């Protein structure tokens, strides 16, 4: 796993914060220094949400990311807001099902994935965050698949472990997309 500054952004209710927590948790288990910072406010399903995940070899200084290495974008407003902040040579992962435009930058790597469509095919649009995480893993090699599988299992309550299986399935679908 590599050191990365990751911003995940989209609508409230898409599981943006949970996706970030999985990455932060997996990095913590792997012995990295990490921080996870959510946007907070009068946010609700349909509003905007984002979270900043810093993964580092060194103790984390500022937990606020100004220029991310990676942007995982799950709606149009978040792409509009964060596209230009990504570092040169960075990566943008785009949910093509929900974002009706291309990335205009030419100095970043871009991965388009039909995350919401794939999630709906799996039976639930709310799995799109897991599809995006899978696509992010494949594109950046930031984690190995098993690290995130373990994080999913550990971060879902014991009584709801059936959901972990579905989440993992969605993530693998995103990885192979």
């Amino acid at each position, binding site marked *: 796993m590599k050191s990365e500054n990751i911003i995940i952004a989209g609508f409230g209710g898409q599981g943006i914060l949970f996706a970030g927590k999985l990455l932060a948790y997996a990095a913590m288990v792997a012995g990295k220094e990490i*921080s996870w910072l959510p946007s907070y406010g009068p946010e609700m399903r349909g509003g905007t949400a984002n979270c900043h995940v810093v993964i580092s070899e060194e103790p984390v200084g500022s937990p606020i990311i100004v220029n991310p290495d990676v942007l995982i974008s799950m709606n149009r407003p978040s792409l509009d807001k964060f596209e230009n902040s990504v570092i040169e040579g960075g990566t943008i992962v785009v949910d093509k099902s929900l974002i009706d435009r291309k990335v205009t930058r030419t100095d970043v790597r871009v991965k388009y994935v039909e995350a919401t469509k794939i999630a709906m095919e799996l039976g639930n649009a709310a799995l799109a965050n897991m599809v995006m995480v899978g696509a992010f893993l494949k594109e950046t090699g930031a984690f190995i698949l098993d690290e995130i599988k373990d994080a999913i299992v550990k971060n879902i309550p014991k009584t709801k472990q059936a959901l972990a299986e579905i989440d993992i399935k969605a993530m693998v679908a995103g990885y192979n997309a």
Partner: protein
Amino acid sequence: MSEKVLMKGNEAIAEAAILAGCRYFFGYPITPQTEIAAYMAKKMPKIGGTFLQAESEVSAINMVYGAAGAGARVMTSSSSPGMSLKGEGISYIAGADLPCVIVNIVRGGPGLGGIQPAQSDYFQATKGGGHGDYHLLVLAPNSVQEMVSLTIDAFDLADKYRIPVMLLGDGTLGQMMEPVEFSNDNISHVYEKPWATVGTQKKRKHNIINTLYMSPEELEYTIIERQKKYNSIVQNEIRCETSYLEDAEYVLSAYGTSSRIVETAVHQLRKEGYKAGIIRPITLWPFPSHIYKKAAEHAKAFLSVEMSMGQMVEDIMLAVNGKAPVHFFGRTGGVIPTPAEIVSKVKDIAGGNASE
């Protein structure tokens, strides 16, 4: 060593308080600290403790006053506007020499302000907030792990000195998650409280908790006696962290979240050849004045970085006492300074392009 867990700052404070033996929590919800109350609401009933959501902040702080008087380990938490409401009760608790822990997860002000992180309650926390000659001991963590250790220490310091202790955080620290350990090293002490109003059983005279003194001489006496306690805290309890200070020409100073941003900025400045160092006060009162005084012997300039319009900068000026220029950079109202802005400010100072 115990296992690391991923936790929000607010939740970590609540768990640490429980570990420190806090069994009474009185509060009223307000963003961005509500997770503290939510955690207490969930945990307290399971461990024989009391969680009570009061009808207002005024009510909550007076419940703290009562529980503290009865010798309980008690805590309340709020955010800026709520803290203003608690001001009267805090002054009474200070005047009654009672121990308690008060958490302020600061948001932008004045008035209702906003709900995003700020550090604009520094004056309120360190210079009063309520009326009268009193101090709070003010602790300023800058990580989730430190929110654990300082919460536990806060209960000990409160009991040791019979003083209200404030934990001063901000929305970023409250909301962010970092790995934390609740290790066995963080053991809290038990203090005898012969002054507590827990019933005499007809074996001793009544303990009386009171803050009203109609005789000026009597009131002055209690204030002077309390001042001795404050002097002892200044002597013994100052905490401060410094880095890169030995050869520092430019001394940056910040607490809490802004100290994390300053850390990133100073790494950048060092890479570019600027001799920058950091003073991070952990106790805001008592203020580590002597550290600044010593640094002023060699420093070309000081820079206070705050999420306010400049509050701690005044304490730095008093400590430096004219020996070196003291500059300020801040963003406020919920806006957080960036490392790049801080680097640029230091370059302006180094280039002679910044006025104090």
